[in-house]
């Protein structure tokens, strides 16, 4: 392959990634030359501009056909576009949330945060737009490494240190496990291109090793649950969420989680769609009960343990575990609605969770605490914080006229849509949702039913904007979910996801 061939690829489709990469580099250089005392807020604006630029680039690509560069190591299809929008949007909101962070001891690391955030975003975006095991892995690690560092950015804060260390150890083990599983997936097929893997999976030779395949699947899957904070690799989340700075927690719980689902979808669906199961059924059908069990366990652990939390960030960590469990449900059901359901739920989740974290941030900065009691009497002190917070909590709990409800409704559609319908999974989800009412409404009760002498809360303008945007979106998507669904259906053809344009025509075994 010579330079001409390399240059013949349509590199322009990578524009969003290039923009992010460029801005990240620029930021690091600027940061290097900026005076230590000067505020890093301009960096935030620059980073934000970069994200918006990348978003714009993606919107301009909406009509672009499926494009593949270098044997799907980069791939632009509807799936990647749809989910990259989520990632970018999430990062943008986290940026605004962080830019207004007035906590002094973080100030000194402000600059690094921005370009680390962008680097993490870059990794996530690469995960969204690749169909090659190696790229996926490197993207995943880029995201992970940046996250480890971000979690530990508050160097003087013991909790931040500890959370970062826990994160890096858990993450390291998870990476090893994932890779161990992937190594078998790779080994049994000898390919790294997902489509080729899928093709090779149909090889009758592999029928003999269906057990190993199943093991590989389960190990890889379990390893990847680390990113989405689902069982069995969920336990890091509460500690890390608690210790990390709030913007990082928001990032972890939204963008990083979204990226986790992206890689799960990409890797699992494409790779195993044609794989044989142990009893010669489809492997994906055969693993359903196990994934279901994991989803159920995740929902139960997350919701039940959240009941006992007094620390709001920790509570949201468990909540986020539970939410991961919910999103795993359509994944289990293999419904044809899979992509839009997950996409929609993640979109809803993005708004409600970032919105909630914005308020947590405001309050925890003011009160110097993360205890639930910081919400005491919020309705009296600042109704304009209490009301949106209520919407976010209701949405998380899945109560109508919020986006969270429509998302959950969709998940149920997925779970009950195919024959045989997964009634018990739906029942577990509903039962745990009920349990979740208790702790979500507990926060609401604290805001509305308790009184407090504390003073009013002042909200920085940028955060207020994030808040308003998230609240409006949460409600709007709850009332008119078609806004998002039509956008999805109108611009994304999910068949592209399965379209192997590269491998069939041009792949040559050049070794």
């Amino acid at each position, binding site marked *: 392959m010579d330079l001409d061939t390399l240059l013949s690829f349509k590199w322009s489709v990578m524009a969003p990634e290039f923009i992010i990469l460029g801005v990240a580099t620029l930021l690091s250089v600027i940061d290097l030359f900026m005076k230590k005392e000067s505020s890093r807020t301009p960096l935030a604006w620059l980073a934000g501009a970069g994200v918006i630029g990348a978003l714009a680039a993606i919107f301009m690509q909406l009509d672009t056909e499926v494009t593949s560069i270098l044997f799907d190591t980069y791939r632009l299809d509807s799936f990647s576009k749809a989910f990259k929008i989520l990632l970018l949007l999430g990062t943008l909101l986290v940026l605004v949330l962080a830019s207004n962070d007035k906590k002094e001891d973080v100030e000194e690391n402000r600059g690094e945060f921005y370009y680390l955030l962008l680097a993490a975003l870059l990794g996530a975006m690469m995960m969204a737009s690749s169909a090659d095991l190696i790229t996926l892995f490197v993207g995943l690690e880029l995201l992970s490494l940046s996250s480890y560092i971000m979690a530990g950015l508050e160097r003087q804060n013991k909790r931040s240190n500890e959370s970062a260390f826990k994160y890096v150890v858990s993450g390291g083990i998870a990476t090893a496990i994932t890779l161990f599983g992937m190594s078998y997936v790779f080994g049994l097929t000898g390919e790294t291109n997902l489509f080729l893997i899928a093709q090779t999976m149909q090889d009758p030779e592999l029928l003999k090793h269906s057990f190993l395949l199943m093991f590989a699947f389960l190990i890889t899957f379990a390893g990847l649950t680390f990113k989405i904070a689902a069982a069995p690799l969920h336990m890091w989340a509460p500690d890390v969420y608690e210790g990390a700075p709030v913007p990082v927690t928001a990032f972890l719980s939204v963008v990083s989680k979204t990226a986790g689902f992206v890689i799960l979808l990409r890797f699992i669906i494409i790779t195993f769609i044609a794989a044989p199961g142990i009893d010669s059924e489809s492997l994906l059908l055969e693993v359903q009960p196990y994934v279901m069990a994991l989803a159920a366990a995740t929902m139960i652990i997350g919701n039940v343990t959240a009941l006992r939390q007094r620390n709001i960030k920790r509570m949201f960590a468990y909540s986020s575990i539970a939410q991961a469990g919910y999103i795993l449900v359509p994944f289990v059901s293999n419904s044809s609605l899979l992509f839009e359901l997950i996409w929609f739920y993640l979109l809803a989740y993005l708004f409600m969770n970032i919105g909630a974290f914005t308020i947590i941030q405001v309050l925890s900065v003011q009160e110097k605490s993360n205890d639930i009691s910081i919400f005491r009497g919020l309705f009296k002190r600042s109704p304009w914080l209490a009301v949106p917070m209520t919407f976010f909590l209701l949405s998380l709990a899945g109560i109508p006229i919020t986006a969270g409800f429509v998302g959950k409704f969709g998940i*149920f*559609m997925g779970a009950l849509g195919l024959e045989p319908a997964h009634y018990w999974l739906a029942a577990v989800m509903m039962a745990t*949702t009920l349990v979740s009412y208790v702790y979500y409404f507990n926060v609401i009760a604290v805001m509305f039913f308790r009184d407090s002498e504390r003073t009013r809360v002042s909200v920085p303008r940028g955060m207020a904007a994030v808040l308003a945007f998230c609240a409006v979106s949460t409600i709007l998507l709850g009332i008119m979910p078609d806004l998002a669904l039509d956008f999805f*259906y109108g611009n994304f053809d999910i068949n592209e996801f399965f379209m192997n344009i590269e491998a069939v025509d041009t792949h040559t075994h050049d070794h």
Partner: protein
Amino acid sequence: MNAWLLSILIFSPLLGVLVLMFVPSSDEKSIKWLGVLGTLFPLGIALVVLSAFKMGGDELQLTEKFSWISYEVFQSKGQVSYPIFYEIGVNGLSMVLILLTAVVSVLAAIASFSIKQNWKSYFILFFLLEMGMLGVFAAQNLFLFFIFFEITLIPMFFLIGRWGYLEREKAAYSFLIYNGVGSAILLIVFVALFMKTGTMNFQELAYTFSLPQAELNQLFITKGFKMGMLIALLVAFAVKLPVFPLHSWMVRVHVQAPPAIVMIHSGILLKIGAYGVIVFGAGMFPDQFKSLAFVIGLFGVINLLYGAFLALTQTDVKRVLAYSSVSHMGIVLIGLAAGNTSGMTGAVFQVVSHGLISALLFFLIGALYERSGSSELSAFGGVAKRMPILAGVFLAGGLASLGLPGMSGFISEFMAFLGLFEKMPVLAAVGTLGLILTAVYVLRAVLSITFGAEKEMPESRDLSSSERVPAFVLLAAILFIGIYPAWLNDMLRPTLDAILLGLGG
């Protein structure tokens, strides 16, 4: 105008919310009056709707239908879409319930004058609650029904938890979790039905399920599936109704919530359960419903007797009334179990009648509580002396509650039992024991408050003029239905006939 009429009605309480937003929260007086005005407005529109409603005409009227949400699914068969529409309409049954909602809301708003704090947020939530209730009865598909159903949940949670009595928060959670269980089951059932049939519209669903089994098999709808769905629905609505043994939340709410809210709750919200059983249970799965009739009847009788027995020895008048509600909801079940014209009519009449009666009684309890600061029976005595009007209305309400002829309670009890006697005479005969017990506990409660030696109370003024309005309006309505039931009956008949046609009775 007519095309939008119903939507205007449903969302008309929002106008109140909007107006209240601009009133300073310290301006108690204007907020309270706006609170009443804000409910009068929907009442006015409800009356317009009533006038536009053709009695005994087509089954569904004033319908509206817009495309709302559309999921597109690619299956092997090709593209199948799962559209969700915004579709509303009224038939006789929902018209009656909408009217009841509008009326009771106004009266409850008046009764809310006794609220001591945070009037603004109180009334905003109150309006949202009213919107939810109106929507529940106007909804013509499962999705919309569920949404409005849940919308009623949230304001109620706040209203109980913030403005209730001492153990209000526990009551609020109790309310939330129990009703959450109900709505959780509902959601699963609704989605399951949706995914099997591709529609959420009540009528289309009813039509689909009435298809011959051979066609249904192609949709993977077995008899077992239908039965399972029906049972789940019944359980879900049993929570709301509530049916023994799922009633304890309701008692708690009735005791702890502010009186005006209990008026709404007992008067209307409980009725959603009955409405649901009628529309979904009997309306969509008539065959299965019939085969479950005995169980439903049994639970009806158990409810009736259990509530009555427990009401006998309660020392708190609110608890007496709460258990009395349990008991009276048993009559709804009894009527439904009968599944014949009289039974159905009785059930629906009981829905309306109990709505009015319990609203009246709780209103009076609220007035008494405000004066005495207690709701213990032992705290009262000889109220008739200083407050003859209150005592008189209270007695009248009690008599209505125990089914005195000439009042609405009689018609419903009579019809329900009449129906059940045709189908299950022995069960019905056992049930009539409840009529005696009802008399015992109602008189015990009413008499120990109004009769006997007078006891000291901090305040002993009779009903003020603003308090008389709700009391007399409700009493008049109770008497009107009791004396001239034909009006209500004519309105309900087409709807009930349609359901009865399915039940084959």
